[in-house]
C-alpha cells in the first residue's frame, strides 16, 4: 500500500490526467459547438505522434518544437474537413435530423481509412525515439526530462486554452454556440466562422497532445482508439460542452486510471477505463458536474 502514497505515482497520474484534459478539450469543442461525435479523435493523437516522430527521425527536430507543427497540420486538417464535408453536412436537413449518429458513422469511416493509410505508409510496427531521457529529480520525485516537459507543456497549454475560451470574446462566442446554436445566430454571432475555428482549434490541440504523447509511449497506427474512449469518458464525466468540467474530469480520470492500475494490476487497465465509462453512461449520463438532462 506504500506505493499509493508515493509522489512518483502522483506525478504519473498528473501527467496522464493533463494529457486526457488536453485531448478531451478538443473533443468537447467539436461536440459542443456542432454536435459532431468525433470517434476519429484519437486518430488525431496518432497523426500528431507520427508528425513528431517524423520530424525527429528525418530532421532531428525535437517534439517541443514539432508540436507546433503538429498543431498547425492537424488544425489544417480540421479546416479541410470543415470546408469539404461538415459545412455542407450542417446545412443538410436530412442529415441534420440524425446528425449525431450520422457523424459518428462518418468519423468512424474516416478513422478506419486513416488508420489503414498510416499502416500502408509506416507499417503496423511500434516505433519510438529517445528524447530527454535523462532523469530529473525534484524532491522525492524522479522523472525523465521528457515526462517533466510533457507535464509542464500540457498543463500550460490546457489551462491557457480553458482560460482563453472562458474570457476572450471568441471564447464567449464558442460558449454561446455550445449553449444554444440558433440563439447565437440571432444575436449576431457568425456561426459558420465559430464552427470552423472550433474544429480547427479542437483538431490542433489534439495534434499537439499527440506530439507530446510520442515521447511517452511507442507509437502505432492503432494507438488512437484508447484515447478516443478516454476522451469520451472525460467529456461525459465533465458534462458535454462544459470545458472547465472537462478539464477537471480529465485529471480525475488520469488519477482513477493510474491509481486503479496500481491497486489491481496492468491487465485491468482497459477493464477499468471501459468499466468507468459504462458505469457513467448508465448511472449518470448528465456527468458528475452536470445539471439536468443531456441535450439530445
Amino acid at each position, binding site marked *: 500500500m506504500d506505493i499509493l502514497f508515493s509522489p512518483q505515482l502522483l506525478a504519473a497520474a498528473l501527467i496522464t490526467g493533463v494529457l486526457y484534459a488536453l485531448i478531451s478539450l478538443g473533443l468537447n469543442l467539436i461536440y459542443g459547438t456542432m454536435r459532431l*461525435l468525433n*470517434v476519429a479523435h484519437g486518430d488525431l493523437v496518432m497523426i500528431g505522434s507520427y508528425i513528431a516522430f517524423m520530424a525527429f527521425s528525418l530532421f532531428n527536430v525535437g517534439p517541443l518544437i514539432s508540436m507546433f507543427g503538429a498543431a498547425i497540420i492537424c488544425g489544417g486538417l480540421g479546416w479541410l474537413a470543415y470546408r469539404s*464535408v461538415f459545412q455542407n*453536412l450542417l446545412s443538410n436537413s*436530412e*442529415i441534420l435530423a440524425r446528425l*449525431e*449518429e*450520422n457523424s*459518428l*458513422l*462518418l468519423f*468512424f*469511416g*474516416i*478513422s*478506419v*481509412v486513416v*488508420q*489503414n*493509410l498510416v*499502416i*500502408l505508409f509506416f507499417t503496423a510496427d511500434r516505433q519510438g525515439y529517445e528524447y530527454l531521457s535523462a532523469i530529473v529529480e525534484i524532491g522525492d520525485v524522479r522523472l525523465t526530462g521528457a515526462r517533466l516537459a510533457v507535464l509542464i507543456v500540457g498543463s500550460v497549454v490546457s489551462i491557457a486554452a480553458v482560460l482563453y475560451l472562458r474570457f476572450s470574446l471568441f471564447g464567449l462566442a464558442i460558449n454561446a454556440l455550445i449553449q444554444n446554436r440558433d440563439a447565437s445566430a440571432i444575436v449576431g454571432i457568425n456561426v459558420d466562422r465559430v464552427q470552423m475555428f472550433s474544429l480547427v482549434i479542437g483538431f490542433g490541440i489534439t495534434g499537439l497532445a499527440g506530439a507530446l504523447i510520442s515521447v511517452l509511449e511507442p507509437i502505432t497506427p492503432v494507438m488512437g482508439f484508447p484515447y478516443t*474512449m478516454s476522451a*469520451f469518458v472525460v467529456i*461525459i464525466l465533465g458534462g458535454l460542452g462544459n470545458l472547465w468540467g472537462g478539464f477537471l474530469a480529465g485529471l480525475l480520470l488520469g488519477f482513477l486510471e493510474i491509481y486503479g492500475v496500481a491497486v489491481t494490476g496492468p*491487465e*485491468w487497465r*482497459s*477493464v477499468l477505463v*471501459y*468499466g468507468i*465509462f*459504462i458505469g457513467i*453512461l*448508465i448511472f449518470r*449520463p448528465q456527468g458528475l458536474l452536470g445539471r439536468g438532462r*443531456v441535450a*439530445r
Partner: protein
Amino acid sequence: MNNSLRLIGTAAVIVILASLSGLASEYMLGIGFTLFMYIALAQSWIILSGMTGYISLGHVVFFGSGAYVFVLLWGLVPVWLGVAISGLVVGIGALMIGYPVLRVRGPYFVILSFGLAELVKNLVLINEARMYMSLRPVFGAPPLAQLYIAMLVLAVVATALTYWIRRSRFGAGLRSIREDEWAAETIGVPASRLKLIAFALSGLIPAMVGAIFIMRSGIFQPGDAFNPIVSFTIVTMAIIGGSDDAAGPLLGVAFLVILQELLWANWPEIYMIILGVLLIGFVLFAPGGILGWCSKNLSRSKKNAA
C-alpha cells in the same frame, strides 16, 4: 398468387444451396459459410439497430460470448446441443443486461455498445490468462459440409425472423421507437419491453453463429472472437444494403463478402480502406443504402416518364 410463387422460389433456392454441401468444393463451401454467417449476423443486427434505431457498434459481443460459452462446454455436451445452449445463455444474458443498457439513448448507446464489447473482451482475456489459456483448440469438429448447412439454417432463420418481425405488430412498435421514442411511449407502446425483447433476439442468433464459427476456425482466441472488425463489417453491410427490410442486408453482405474474399488475405488494409470509404460515401450520399437509393431514383424516373 404472387406471394406463394415467391415462397416456392425462396424454398427452391434454399434447397439448392443446401444440396451444394455435398457437391461444391471445399473452397466454395468456405465462401458460402462466410456468406451465410454474415447474412445471419446482419439480419440479427437489423432486428435491434435497423428497427429501433439503437445502433449497435459492438454486436461482436454476442458472437464472441456465444463462442466462449460454446468452447467452455466443448466435450461436455453434444455439439449441436452446445450450440443451442450458447445461444440461450447469451440470449438470457442479453435480457439481464438489456434493461440498464437500453436506457441509454441515441449516440450514447452507440458508444456504449462498443465499450461493452471491449469490456467483455478484456474480462474474457483476464479470465483466460488466469486459467493459463491463451488459446483453446477445438478438436474433432464436424466436417465443413455440416457446418455449412448449420450456418445456412441460421441465415434462413435470421432472415425469416427479420422478415416476420418487420411485418408484425412487434416490428411496428420497434419502428415507432426509432421514429420517436417519447411519442411512442405516450401513445402506449411498451418501449422498454419491446427494446429488451429485440435486444435478446438480436443476440441469440449471433451467439450461435459464433459457436459454429469456432468449429470452423478450430481455435478460440479472445482477441479473434471479439474482434471489433466483425462489428464494423456488420454495420457497414447493413448500411450499404440500407432499409430495415430483410432484403437490404442480403445485397450488402453479398457485396462485402466478395470484396473480403478478394482482398482480405493479401491486402487487409486496402479492404479496410474500401470499407471506410464505402461507409463515408453511403452516409453522405445515399443514407438509404443501395435499396433506398434504387427506390428513390426509380420512382423519380417513373415520375419523369409520366
